[in-house]
């Protein structure tokens, strides 16, 4: 009885949020700049949630998430611009995003094999190398514009779609984390050897989590490409990956609420600091270093809001 009740409330809340997004964006309540910032916030929330699965919940260390985002962005853009007729755009947009996400997940599967043979620092090295390789490959393919970038996408991303995908990401990741598999993921973080001993299939689980994370990074990439209507390999450099790391560690590792908070705070802060011009880029790294020294677990730490934890976990 209680379960159906909370399910009903959550769906109602989601619908309300979607409706609010639709009203706000179509009725001209918000000006375009604020809408734009809100969409960035949404995309960053998706990215942060997805990276948190690997870095926060699984305790592995991926620094190349911008690589997955790039794969998603380029695949989705190619589909809407070169493969399908332009008029179909609005109808196939969700499918296109899913394709971008799947391509990113496939890329994750490919690099998972070399990286999970070793742990810790080496995963950082491999994901970093992946980020560099993706950027380098994109710069060398003339069909997608090489270093000049790729354009011609229609502006298909709007506030409603962003909110929709944020909700989907939150739902899927939350259900994954509190499922049997997800508890295995947390066990890997706490002690991989002990997890293996209690028959958690660690190699397979790591690949699942990694691919799921890459999938949502790819979706975020597709949204980003159709918001900006222009992508180039440089926008998916290691700087982008570092931004994501800042957001994850600002909000709190191993906390979905924290990721939402971290992404929102960081994006809004960076917008507010725009008048500082070049000095703005000094703030992010400095913030990261200070966070690591003084509060390495982030704002939320490992805590989670009551809304997200399942009923069985509430004590």
């Amino acid at each position, binding site marked *: 009885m209680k379960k159906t009740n909370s399910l009903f409330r959550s769906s109602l809340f989601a619908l309300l949020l979607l409706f609010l997004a639709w009203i706000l964006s179509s009725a001209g309540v918000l000006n375009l700049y604020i809408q734009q910032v809100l969409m960035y916030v949404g995309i960053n929330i998706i990215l942060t949630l997805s990276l948190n699965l690997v*870095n926060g919940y699984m305790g592995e260390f991926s620094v190349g998430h911008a690589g997955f985002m790039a794969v998603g962005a380029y695949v989705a853009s190619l589909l809407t611009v070169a493969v399908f007729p332009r008029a179909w755009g609005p109808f196939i947009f969700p499918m296109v995003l899913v394709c971008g996400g799947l391509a990113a997940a496939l890329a994750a599967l490919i690099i998972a094999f070399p990286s999970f043979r070793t742990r810790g620092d080496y995963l950082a090295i491999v994901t970093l190398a992946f980020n560099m390789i993706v950027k380098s490959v994109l710069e060398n393919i003339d069909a997608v514009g090489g270093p000049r970038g790729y354009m011609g996408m229609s502006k298909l991303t709007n506030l409603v779609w962003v909110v929709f995908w944020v909700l989907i990401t939150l739902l899927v990741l939350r259900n994954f984390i509190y499922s049997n598999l997800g508890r295995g993921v947390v066990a890997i973080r706490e002690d991989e050897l002990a997890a293996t001993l209690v028959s958690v299939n660690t190699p397979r689980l790591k690949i699942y989590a990694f691919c799921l994370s890459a999938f949502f990074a790819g979706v975020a990439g597709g949204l980003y490409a159709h918001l900006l209507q222009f992508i180039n390999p440089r926008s998916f450099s290691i700087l982008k990956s570092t931004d994501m790391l800042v957001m994850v560690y600002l909000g709190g590792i191993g906390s979905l609420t924290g990721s939402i908070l971290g992404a929102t705070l960081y994006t809004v802060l960076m917008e507010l600091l725009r008048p500082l011009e070049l000095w703005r880029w000094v703030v*992010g*790294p400095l913030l990261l270093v200070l966070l690591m020294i003084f509060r390495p677990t982030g704002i939320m730490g490992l805590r989670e809001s009551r809304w997200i934890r399942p009923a069985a976990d509430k004590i």
Partner: protein
Amino acid sequence: MMALALQYLLNALQLGSVYALIALGYTMVYGILTMINFAHGDIFMVGSYLAMWATLFLLGIKLPLPVPLVFLGALLFTMILTAALGVAIERLAYRPLRHAPRVSAVITALGVGLFLENFTLATIGPEPRQMPAIIPVQQLSWAGISFTNIQLLIIIVSIILMLLLDWLVRHTLTGMAMRAISYNRPIVPLMGVPVNRVISMTFAIGSAIAGAGGLLYGLAYPVLDPYMGIRIGWWAFIAAVVGGIGNIRGAVLGGYLLGVVEIFTPVFLASSTYRDFVAFSMLLILLIFKPNGILGRPTFEKV
């Protein structure tokens, strides 16, 4: 044909020397703290800016200093200041995290690197600077190979520095303490080794060598910009991993190997834009078959 190959090899040696110098810093810090100091490439960048100012100053004062003195003065100035920078970074950013999870230290290092880049960008401005020529360039040729005195200087100075470091690590008390810490961290303090001082020393030496690399690189490629440390730093890092991170001779080997990759990729693929792709793919493939690098020894997890 032979002469051409030798010509390329000489270029590879020149570039490889710089990579090897920077890779040494990565590998030394990893050996002692098992931490990847991602800010190291940016210490190299700061080093080349410092070298630029030092030479501008030394050439600017009215005294007619002889060329070797200007070079040595700039080298000394750069090495001392970058050493101080390295020690300061370790003291302020890494030491508070010594007992934190290793991931925190790595992220901090990434943050420090970005901070150095963007701070330089914000204070000096984005436009590239020109490194003044300390030594007039002379074209030399021997047995059909043409080279410059700068190339020769870079290779010789690098090799001297590497031999110095090798001697320092193998034959001095500090070096012995470094090797001891990298061999068994928990036991060493019990033997009365001042761990903090040795770690500071490691950062000082590694950063000073990177600073020297900055000066030498600036002599060969005199255009400096705040983001120059990223690419060179990553390449040097690959060099350290390929050679076996934590192993000093491995870093030198990896450095020269990467120099060869960078110079010979355009020869075989007819385009220099693939060099990042080739280098990072090489790294990935190597990690699959030999996860500890060429000279690294395997580590085992104790339960």
